[in-house]
């Protein structure tokens, strides 16, 4: 088992270095800056109220996690375009998507580590929260990681992809009480019956699994438009 996992692990480790640089292992610590700021604002009384369980999903965990996901996700393909390494990725047997998947795997693990740190810090310093909050917080991060990758490939640039992604992210945050948003938080839909809430939650979660996979496949398709991506 250990032998079988060694190669994928090495691949993901190298992929993490190409996406996050030499200090990629510090990346999970970055979202804690946001949490630290929130903690200070509570201690110094800049906020009228302290944080509650309902804030844990989006405000405390998901928002900084998603920012990190966008920052790393946009580098998956657009990073290769910007650094002019894309043509090398096309030489990989089986297809360039193997490179993208290795990088996505690496980013996913970074996000998991970051979420664990955020969750522990939130629990210790700010508020307790139910377990499903962790899935709700990870969903938009994973979706925006894939979307950022797609927009980076679409606009052939990390910077352009990140800017457009920031716009979509703002919109999604504004719509967070609605089930169309990746940030959908069941605790914000308090006026619904228990059955309605569960129904909307399941719809949202299933829809975003499908949507994330669809964006990923479309992006892989876009990355195979080699003439376009290699020109200019």
């Amino acid at each position: 088992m250990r032998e079988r996992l060694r190669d994928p692990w090495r691949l993901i480790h190298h992929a993490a270095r190409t996406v996050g640089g030499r200090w990629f292992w510090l990346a999970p610590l970055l979202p804690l800056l946001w949490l630290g700021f929130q903690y200070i604002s509570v201690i110094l009384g800049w906020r009228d109220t302290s944080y509650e369980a309902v804030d844990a999903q989006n405000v405390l965990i998901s928002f900084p996690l998603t920012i990190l996901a966008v920052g790393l996700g946009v580098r998956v393909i657009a990073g290769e375009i910007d650094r002019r390494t894309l043509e090398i990725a096309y030489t990989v047997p089986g297809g360039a998507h193997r490179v993208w998947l290795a990088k996505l795997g690496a980013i996913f693990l970074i996000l998991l580590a970051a979420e664990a740190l955020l969750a522990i810090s939130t629990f210790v310093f700010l508020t307790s929260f139910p377990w499903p909050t962790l899935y709700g917080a990870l969903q938009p991060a994973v979706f925006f990681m894939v979307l950022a990758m797609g927009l980076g490939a679409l606009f052939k640039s990390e910077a352009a992809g990140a800017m457009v992604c920031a716009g979509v992210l703002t919109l999604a945050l504004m719509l967070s009480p609605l089930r169309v948003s990746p940030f959908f938080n069941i605790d914000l839909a308090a006026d619904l019956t228990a059955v309605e809430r569960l129904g909307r939650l399941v719809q949202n979660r299933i829809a975003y699994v499908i949507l994330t996979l669809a964006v990923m496949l479309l992006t892989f398709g876009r990355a195979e438009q080699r003439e376009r991506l290699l020109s200019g």
Partner: protein
Amino acid sequence: MSNATSALRLSGVTKRYGDFTAVAQLSLNVEAGTIYGILGPNGAGKTTMLRNLAGILEPTVGAIRLGGVRLEKLRKYLARYIGYLPQDYGLPGDLTAREYLDYYALLYGLPAERRNERVEKLLQEVGLGERANEKIGDYSGGMKQRVAVARTLLRLPPVIIVDEPTVGLDPRERIRFRNLLSRLSDGRIVLFSTHVVEDVEVACERVIVMASGRIVFDGPPAELSRIAEGRAWIAFLLPGEEKDLPAGAQIIDEVPQAGGASMTRILSHERPHPDATADPPSLQDGYLWLVGQAEIV
């Protein structure tokens, strides 16, 4: 795929981008154990041809066969057969050479039991064994290029394609790189494109000249020189005399002389000046003459 069956053949390859035809009707037979130099001005279609040969792009029309098998059928496993070093061989500056080669060895599906040995051997072969644990970002241009070459060799492919490898290298690194290509060519096909005629003159057994998306010459370098036979002239021209040269004459070189004249090397199908003397043609003369004629047509 053994070297005996590794001949590369292009038949009527055309690549179009919308209405623009980048290369047209390319036909070529490439044999193992030979270094091919591809010369051509900017926009001649060299990179497009090499990308098609490397399986990065697919021809719009025509076929490319490696050992008799169409390249499309090998596309999923192409790294085993073709090592490709593009013009932009950007490398991740945060990885060391050893890590980079290990990364691509994993992606290229090199079996675990051979991977470390292959990576170490290649690092020695390209002269980076001592500095393999330093970040690629700290390497010189020549060293980066050698890392990139080592990547192309990971699967020991019978065909190596290199696009403008000597651009930006200092003369010492250029010579070192040419020697590396010569060593690699043993039993392999090596194709490399360049603007530098001297690289072809020194390193290649065959030369292909491209102009306006077509192959206008394919043969040994000496034969290319002979194309300019009787067309290379030396004349001492006074200022203003250039405009009196015959139509189609190309000035190749001008060296200012005392008294205001300049010693001018001219390619022309007829004596370009009453005092001009014929000069033995060089490879560069043959190349420039061919390209000049192709552009006139």
